[in-house]
């Protein structure tokens, strides 16, 4: 699990679709960084990218796919279960 990709997924999971610029600003990442992570996420089917025209000019909007949402929730549940398991084993 890449922490930057997890943060991008978290942002899209909470707020719905966001432009590449908005993601970069919100997470303090460079545009290139966001772009490359989004492309990777798109390749895995977690994100869909859509070109759109806004009042501020053309933008690329990123949005989690149904698979992305499902995987995000599964990952969070798995992590919670893992922490719980480790704690139980320790005690």
């Amino acid at each position: 699990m890449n922490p930057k990709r997890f943060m991008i997924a978290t942002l899209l999971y909470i707020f719905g679709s966001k432009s590449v610029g908005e993601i970069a600003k919100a997470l303090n990442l460079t545009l290139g960084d966001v772009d490359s992570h989004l492309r990777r996420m798109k390749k895995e089917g977690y994100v869909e990218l859509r070109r759109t025209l806004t009042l501020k000019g053309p933008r690329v909007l990123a949005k989690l796919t149904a698979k992305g949402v499902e995987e995000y929730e599964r990952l969070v549940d798995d992590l919670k279960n893992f922490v719980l398991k480790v704690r139980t084993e320790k005690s």
Partner: protein
Amino acid sequence: MESNIEEIANLGEFAKKLRVYFRTASMGISFLIFGGIFGGYWLVIFSIGSLYNSPWIFIGGTLGVIPLAFLCAFLVAKTVPGIRRERLPNEGARWIVSFIIPIAAAISISFLYSVPLFIWYGVLGASFLLVHLLIERPLISAGLLKAKPFLLASIPILLTFPALFLLPPYIDSMTALGLCLLFYSLSGVYALARASKLFSE
């Protein structure tokens, strides 16, 4: 390592709550924005319409509802950051059906009987009930929404609708508008209260 994973899991859990919070809060804010703007708009139209007693003012007022609805939708999108998200299957059609069926029923009835001006109040109540059944309930079942503002607004509107027939003309319309604003505001506040409760559950 374990504490890092726990932090990530906590962040994910918080994200889940925020997601539902924004959807529920957007519903509450929508009620306040739509209720306030439409209430004020119709008060002005009624006042001018009564002053000049011209049907054209009401026809113009009815047409003005379309750009006003877009303005309200724009304001909701601007005030709630989590509004742009995935939709229910055929959500657009569900919205249209919810409003078209009661409007078509009212128009059909108006051909057979004389209907009072405040018929819109009953139409709105029936539309809200359909929105609850076709949109609100599926969203709640999917765990994406925590409040039922459409149901909460529709029940008192439908219950008070028959009482308006007992009132004299003009007073009935003004009462309908006042009650509508009241139920809109209460439903909006209720949705916001339910949304804020998410973080204390």
